[in-house]
């Protein structure tokens, strides 16, 4: 069975390091939260075309994992990919411009929300097909080893994705080839509108790791520091050549599958949503940081204000950006 992680260090030097990590995690989470809440408002105001799968509530997972990665480490993401992109360092301007379908966007306005990428940051793309990023991460890890580099690949996927073939094939492939891949399941309890109990008989997705001969751990996905510790261990293990590993982060999406509010049947109870919101990952980290003296309230507020300004500036940049020229419709269908 998968192991539940709980580690705390009593070493003062480690605590100093932890303070830096907490600030890093906090900043990444605030950036995601503000990017997403503003994107949700823009969508509800009818200012963005297409679909948005927002990441609000799951910030601790992206932040915790990405804080354990280097720029040259690669990630593959999902349809709910903004959080991963922001946490990996993709520019907010390019992201908003893409949501607006502008030519200055991360995909030149050709991809939209579900295809945001930044090769310079090791962000190998969000993905509109559930589970499809898993084998691609395996390929990225293969390339790293082939070239003699020590970068790792992390693939994010949801609980629902662990029922699709690409996940199982990718996990087995990474395992048998011994590749440096970290499998991160963001279990938010729902595959679109179907609860986990309706799409698998397992309680813990991490138990699936055993089927491929890799370790699986379960971590509180609302606890950024816990996610970070688990990710740092898995990344170090993969980087050292010990092969792939799976992390299941139990988390929750505060918004709907798509957009902000559900339009139709109430597939989640108000009580359930309220219970999870009471464990808001940013509130949890801030409360701990203030309580143990890692950060003052004023310092944390400063992060929010600075990020609000940055988000506002990025939205203004996107709105002022030119639209793509229909004459360039065929740009980049082929190379060469």
């Amino acid at each position: 069975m998968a192991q539940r992680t709980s580690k705390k260090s009593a070493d003062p030097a480690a605590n100093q390091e932890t303070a830096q990590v907490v600030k890093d995690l906090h900043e990444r989470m605030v950036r995601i939260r503000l990017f997403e809440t503003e994107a949700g408002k823009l969508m509800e105001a009818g200012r963005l075309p297409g679909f948005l799968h927002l990441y609000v509530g799951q910030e601790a997972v992206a932040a915790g994992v990405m804080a354990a990665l280097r720029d040259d480490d690669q990630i593959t993401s999902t349809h709910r990919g903004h959080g991963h992109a922001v946490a990996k360092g993709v520019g907010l301007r390019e992201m908003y411009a893409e949501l607006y379908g502008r030519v200055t966007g991360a995909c030149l306005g050709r991809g939209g929300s579900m295809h945001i990428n930044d090769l310079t940051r090791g962000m190998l793309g969000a993905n509109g097909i559930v589970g499809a990023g898993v084998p691609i991460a395996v390929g990225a890890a293969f390339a790293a080893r082939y070239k003699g580099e020590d970068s790792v690949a992390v693939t994010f996927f949801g609980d629902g994705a662990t029922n699709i073939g690409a996940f199982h094939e990718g996990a087995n492939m990474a395992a048998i080839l011994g590749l440096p891949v970290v499998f991160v399941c963001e279990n938010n309890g729902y595959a679109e509108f179907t609860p986990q109990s309706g799409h698998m008989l397992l309680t813990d997705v991490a138990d699936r790791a055993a089927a491929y001969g890799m370790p699986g751990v379960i971590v509180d996905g609302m606890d950024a520091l816990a996610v970070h510790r688990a990710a740092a261990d898995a990344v170090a293990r993969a980087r050292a050549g010990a092969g792939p590993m799976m992390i299941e982060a139990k988390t929750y999406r505060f918004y709907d599958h798509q957009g902000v509010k559900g339009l139709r049947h109430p597939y989640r109870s108000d009580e359930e949503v309220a219970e999870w919101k009471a464990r808001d990952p940013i509130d949890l980290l801030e409360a701990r940081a203030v309580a143990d003296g890692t950060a003052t309230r004023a310092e944390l507020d400063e992060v929010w204000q600075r990020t609000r300004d940055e988000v506002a500036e990025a939205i203004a940049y996107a709105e002022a950006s030119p639209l793509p020229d229909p004459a360039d419709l065929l740009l980049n269908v082929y190379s060469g």
Partner: protein
Amino acid sequence: MTTITEARAAAPDGTARKLSYVKAFNEGLAQAMREDENVFVAGEDVAGYGGVFRMFDNLLDEFGPRRMIDTPISEAALVGLGVGAAARGLRPVVDLMFMDFIGVCLDQIVNQAAKMKYMFGGALSVPLTITTASGAGLGAAAQHSQSLEAWLAHVPGLKVVMPSDAYTAKGLTVSAIRDDNPVVVMLNKVLLGSAGEVPEEIYGIPLGQAHTARQGSDVTVIALGRMVGEALAAADELAVQGVEIEVIDPRTVQPLDTETMFASVRRTNRALVVHEAVTFGGLGAEIAAQIQDAAFDHLDAPVLRIGAPFSPVPFSPVLEKAYVPDRARIAEGCRRLLERS
């Protein structure tokens, strides 16, 4: 446009070297691997066993397990591995053994490999080569005999090549590997053992350039893959009767060199398209539509399509023979076109 005068290298004693289709493929792949350290091969039984069709014979000995990778039977993960590795700068060659198996990995081909460059705003290229064996004629039945080029040629971002002989098996494979786009190389199973003249040095054949395999003035026959040889055999038969057909081998079906076809049809005024795939929705429909669009005033008869009937590929040899187009049906089709005017 290349023609029948295309240069073929001769051996020092003046006689051209002959090589089988599968050995020509193997030689091209080996030379491409020597040329570029970033080329590697992955697939089921490609390394230790050398491929079920002997496509990868001896490559493990020369290139070792780092560049020749045996994988589980996991086509989605295999193609995905190729996509991810290509996105990170390698030039993967992944083998799907039988083309029919693309059904289990179509997402990685169609939604990932093909679209990644476009969706990502041109941020990367996906120089991925997918090799696979297609075609009927070996009694392999409905799940091991299909020619599915129309599925793939329909997808923007993919390229698809159909080698028709040993020479093109080598040259198109080399070009596929050198190309910066995802390219599917559809080898033909029946042709694997057929011998042809093949230069010893590495060479590429430009993708998207048709080859006029035989010149003629009466009917233009556009033939895909193994049907090129059948069309040439029909041409010999028709020549005895005083009918000269021009045989065009597109070699690449995506991109498709229609200009060579149009130029030919403007001279012959009649066109026939033949492929192994079912006629309905096949490349023949696309080619016929484009010819009538570009050369309607030159046509003396509607463009004729010859393909398989709308049925899965049958097993029993008598049924399979009736299913796959052949030289007799091509010759008969040419005669029908000539009767129209």
